[in-house]
């Protein structure tokens, strides 16, 4: 049976050229921090990669801080910017109610360990943050705000957030954006956005696992989480992962056909609307990433649907977190006004560079039956 992968937002196949470049670098000897010829050679390749990535992102090479994951970059940014502002007594952290756990959890940690006050920005039913709420907040409590962190596009719904507006409203307040899902999928320029910090990750764009980056304005100084050799701007220590960085950059420079992916997604959405008319596409009216579709199938349970899809050799997801292996109702869908029940009746399908129209049609040939069986099994 053919297996179909529609979970590219979780991770996506490595780009051929990135895999090659990474393997080649893995065979090369030399710690980039060493002064001898081996070290210099690795350092040269690594810094070439940093420069190319910076150009692609619209930032300076010195603004690229490589990390081991997007989660690490988010932690460095949120905690670092909070601590840096804390010197002037600012204790308020503003995040949206639809952030990934890699922002939600560090924010909650700051609240429980570092006396931070967390303010959650609400979203409208289409999953877009409430800018008016932010304006009022900045107007009334702006002087207390240490950092604002709003994701560039949501990982569950694909809904793109108005980060440019956020930066404008924030004024002097540092803004961080988690752009892990957006990079390569929608135009993304660090300098045009005007944010203080931005997170990206390699494995979401066809690069390897275990490498991410925090883009941080060159004049901004923040305390570090990992202390040691001080390799990355004294903000992030640890031997630089040259093969990972080179794989990352190669993937970042590879072609990603946004229009093709978007056409597939739209074909999929039309089929669902036609064949399962009661299904509800979440965030449909908002501007979205090309590859992500989040659908609510009333009267079903996501965990049942996942099992039935898996049985058909189709990999998709709910996009939301698990608690002890049990799917929690998505905090993103709840924030958009869903009930516990409908939030737990939703699936995320995410398309990628390797997705095909044939796959899309194959999924649609089984989906109506899966939904019918899922409904029958929902006998709680």
């Amino acid at each position, binding site marked *: 049976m053919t297996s179909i992968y529609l979970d590219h937002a979780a991770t996506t196949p490595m780009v051929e050229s990135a895999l090659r470049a990474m393997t080649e670098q893995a065979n090369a000897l030399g710690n980039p921090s060493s002064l001898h010829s081996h070290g210099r050679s690795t350092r040269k390749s690594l810094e070439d990669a940093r420069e190319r990535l910076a150009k692609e992102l619209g930032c300076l090479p010195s603004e690229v801080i490589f990390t081991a994951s997007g989660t690490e970059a988010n932690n460095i940014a949120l905690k670092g910017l909070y601590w840096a502002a804390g010197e002037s007594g600012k204790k308020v952290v503003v995040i949206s109610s639809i952030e990934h756990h890699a922002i939600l959890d560090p924010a909650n940690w700051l609240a429980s360990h570092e006396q931070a006050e967390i303010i959650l920005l609400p979203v409208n039913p289409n999953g877009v943050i409430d800018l008016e709420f932010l304006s009022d907040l900045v107007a009334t409590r702006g002087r207390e705000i240490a950092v604002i962190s709003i994701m560039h596009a949501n990982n569950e719904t694909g809904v793109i957030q108005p980060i440019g507006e956020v930066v404008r409203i924030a004024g002097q307040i540092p803004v961080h954006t988690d752009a892990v899902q957006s990079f390569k999928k929608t135009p993304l320029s660090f300098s045009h956005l005007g944010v203080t910090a931005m997170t990206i990750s390699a494995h979401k764009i066809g690069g390897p696992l275990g490498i991410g980056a925090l883009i941080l304005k060159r004049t901004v100084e923040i305390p570090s989480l990992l202390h040691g050799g001080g390799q990355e701007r004294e903000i992030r220590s640890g031997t630089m992962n040259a093969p990972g960085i080179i794989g990352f950059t190669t993937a970042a420079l590879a072609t990603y056909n946004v229009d093709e992916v978007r056409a597939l997604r739209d074909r999929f959405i039309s089929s669902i609307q036609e064949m399962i008319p009661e299904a509800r596409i979440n965030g449909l009216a908002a501007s979205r990433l090309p590859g992500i579709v989040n659908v609510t199938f009333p009267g079903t349970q996501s965990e049942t649907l996942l099992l*039935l899809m*898996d049985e058909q050799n189709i990999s998709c997801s709910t996009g939301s977190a698990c608690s002890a292996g049990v799917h929690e109702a998505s905090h993103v869908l709840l924030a958009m006004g869903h009930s516990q029940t409908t939030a737990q009746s939703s699936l995320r399908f995410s398309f990628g560079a390797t997705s095909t129209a044939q796959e899309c049609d194959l999924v649609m040939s089984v989906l109506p039956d899966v939904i019918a*069986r899922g409904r029958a099994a929902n006998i709680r």
Partner: protein
Amino acid sequence: MKLIAAMSGGVDSAVAAARAVDAGHEVTGVHLALSANPAKYRSGARGCCTIEDSHDARRAADVIGIPFYIWDMAEEFHDGVVEDFLSEYAAGRTPNPCLRCNEKIKFAAVLDRARAMGFDGVVTGHYARTQMSDLGKTLHRALDHLKDQSYVLSVLTVDQISGAIFPLGDTTKVDIRAEARARGLALAQKPDSHDICFVPSGDNAGWLRERLGSDVGPILDQNGVKIGEHKGAYTYTIGQRKGLGLTIPTPDGSPRFVLKIEPVTNTVVVGARKDLAITTMRGERAIWCGPSVDEKSRTGFVQIRAHGTALPCRYFFENNLLVAILEAPLLGLATGQAMVIYDGDRVVGSATICETQ
């Protein structure tokens, strides 16, 4: 067949799932999340329900090579098993939650959902057997009588038995562990579980006291004379001798036993050993695991504890009650327990004991 294997994270259910795969079935592993706030790690003799156990189950499924899912049955478990356990104790009876879990969760909620999803049945690691005969598919004791779990399965209806697969019924536990090792399952050495899975401390009395309160009440002798006080009637069980804390000795110095628990008046009645003796028990909510029992008296065996002895008896069904009349008197029988009738090694059916004399 397409089967759901219920995998607790223990050795038995893992080997059961593997055997079902070997038998040519298409198997999907499912771990039941039964607690809304599971503990992270196993402690004591608890054999399931922690996050560590769900990881063990997932790892076993991966080694066996089957898909694995976690089903959230916390709400069903709480309503059907935990609440039942509490209300039975509050009513002065001694319930068996494992039996209730099989009745309401594993072979009801899980089997129903599995069937609706297009599966044919549920595989579990229970030590019991099923057989096909003129009577249809019937439930039987495991070959290893020491490990036999047919008692806690005696709440399954004919329809539920038709969807139940027990691949371990013909093997001893020692062999199952060896087989798990041979199959490369890391949980081969995991200890057996004994305690009630939702009472993590193993302290049932304390757990009950926390939830039902601990109103002090009188301990009376058979003449109604108060001879002591107890800390919550439900923490006692019929036939109990130890832990009564009585300071007034009997005239002849013989020990006292709990004879009766009266939850309404919060009274515990104690008396002599001989007064514990009963010969007749009646049970309500009878379930037949094969052909139903009628008013005609038949000879067979009745078992009143999970690993108790099978006692020779006559049994029949009268006035909506399952009645068993013992050949020899029995000491100390709590209401609320299940009476399970056997015909040889076949499980005839069961009922919840509501009356003894």
